[in-house]
């Protein structure tokens, strides 16, 4: 079975980022970029399915500028077989990304799409579901465990009140949560070896005009500075004084 894994290039989730001085967007100058951590979990899961003999080919795809090649190369180093970069410098919202990915899915005809539940930059949590809807496929979001048998997947999903186990006929879209796995560390030889794996660049043919766009970015209101207390008694008194209990 072929697996398709869409990945997004995002600012390192542990980096501190700020709005641009004019508030028109996010200042990413000098920032380090990574594969969105949830997508990296999806790549890792795909590689594990290949190691188990369930997947035969892993195709990773990213939509964006030429810089996305770095993240695709990293995914190849983790163990993907082939990469596609849909090149565009347009500002994309989730429906536009889902539309471009759905074209790739129709052309590649994977048995399963594995991708992150959300990107750590815009925190939108939309593309996986929109893609499943466009393809008319079932979905399992927030996956904590994935088992594939024949032509179906059994997925343990995280839900608001605990966990849910669902069965899905394939093809389907599965979005990953943090507990699905811990991505492997890729040593330098792996990254060098991945340079010989195929990476195909295609211009995005038609990009939908955005349905949602960011018109301003600001810092959230700051809390007034807090106070250190010296003892439990003082702490309890302060909590009571603030009427919090």
């Amino acid at each position, binding site marked *: 079975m072929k697996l398709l894994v869409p990945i997004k290039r995002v600012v390192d989730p542990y980096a501190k980022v700020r709005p641009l001085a004019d508030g028109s967007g996010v200042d990413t100058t000098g920032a380090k970029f990574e594969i969105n951590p949830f997508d990296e979990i999806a790549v890792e899961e795909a590689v594990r399915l290949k190691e188990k003999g369930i997947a035969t080919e892993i195709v990773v795809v990213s939509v964006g500028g030429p810089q996305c090649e770095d993240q695709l190369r990293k995914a190849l180093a983790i163990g993907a077989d082939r990469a596609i970069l849909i090149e565009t410098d347009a500002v994309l919202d989730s429906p536009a990304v889902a539309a471009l990915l759905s074209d790739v899915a129709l052309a590649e005809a994977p048995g399963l799409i594995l991708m992150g539940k959300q990107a750590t930059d815009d925190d939108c949590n939309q593309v996986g579901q929109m893609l499943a809807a466009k393809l008319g496929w079932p979905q399992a979001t927030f996956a904590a465990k994935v088992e594939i048998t024949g032509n179906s997947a059994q997925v343990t999903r995280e839900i608001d009140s605990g966990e849910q186990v*669902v069965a899905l006929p394939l093809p389907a879209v599965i979005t990953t949560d943090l*507990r699905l796995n811990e991505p492997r560390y890729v040593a330098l030889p792996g990254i060098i070896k991945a340079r010989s794996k195929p990476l195909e660049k295609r211009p995005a043919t038609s990009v939908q005009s955005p349905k949602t766009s960011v018109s301003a970015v600001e810092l*959230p209101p700051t809390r007034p500075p*807090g106070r250190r207390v010296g003892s439990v008694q003082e702490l309890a008194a302060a909590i009571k004084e603030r009427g919090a209990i």
Partner: protein
Amino acid sequence: MSKLLVIAFDATDAATSFGFAHALGLPFDVLQLTGLSVPSGAGTVTLANLGSIPPADGLAKALQPLVAGYSHIASPSSMGSKDVLAYLAGLLDTGMVTDAIGVVSPTEFKRPIYAGAMTATIKVNCDPIIITFRPGNFGKDAASANGNESTTSLNVTSQATILSESSKGSARPDLSQAAIVVSGGRPLKDAATFESVIGGFADALGAAVGATRAAVDAGIAANDLQVGQTGKVVAPNLYIAAGISGSTQHMAGIKDSKLIVAINTDTNAPIFDAADLGLVGDLFTVLPELQRELKQ
């Protein structure tokens, strides 16, 4: 004409949607998927009487005809609403705003990005617009009575099948609605320690229990207790963080708390920068003492 449809996944969603509907300033109806009708100030409440929420693919398809004619379709943010409403947005080929925390105008919303490190204003240029919002960021005015009430039978056929569901079934208050939340992090060591130290303290105060991702990953706490960027968002009157370093990802879930209290052995822990009240100390000795003091 502009009109909002609130899709209520559970019994409390309709009542907690009033503040958002009010901020949006549009007339609104409620589609109550499970549970009974509650006063929410809605024009019309339609009860679907589902026993439980079906898989997203089938539910979103069944919702499609019912949302026709509405300019805005919204639910309180939850894993369940994001699962279904984003699929619905895909079916309708429309745009979506996740986790709205403010309404600038009916076509402009504020939402957190980068784990809440920044707030973005999102301009919407589509119809309908699908929204999930955080009720804690909107007014808690008491809702007035509903107008009409009707029922509908939703014919849901999903390709996915739910095989089982396990809920920890806690008798404690719901995290996202509790007035007091006590959370523990990695130093709680194991599940039994977490339950007795954090759980015991919470029960004494009638509080809900939360945890960090580090605690959940280590098997110390259940996954549905995770608070933060990728867990639950809480907005209690009192949030007590015990043995929590204060990562950006954790803070993303607690910023709207009225009073944040931090207890940490490390005087340089970042949590102290964000806390309203901080005490440097060992949680294992501080929490039992604090419990006694607060009960006095």
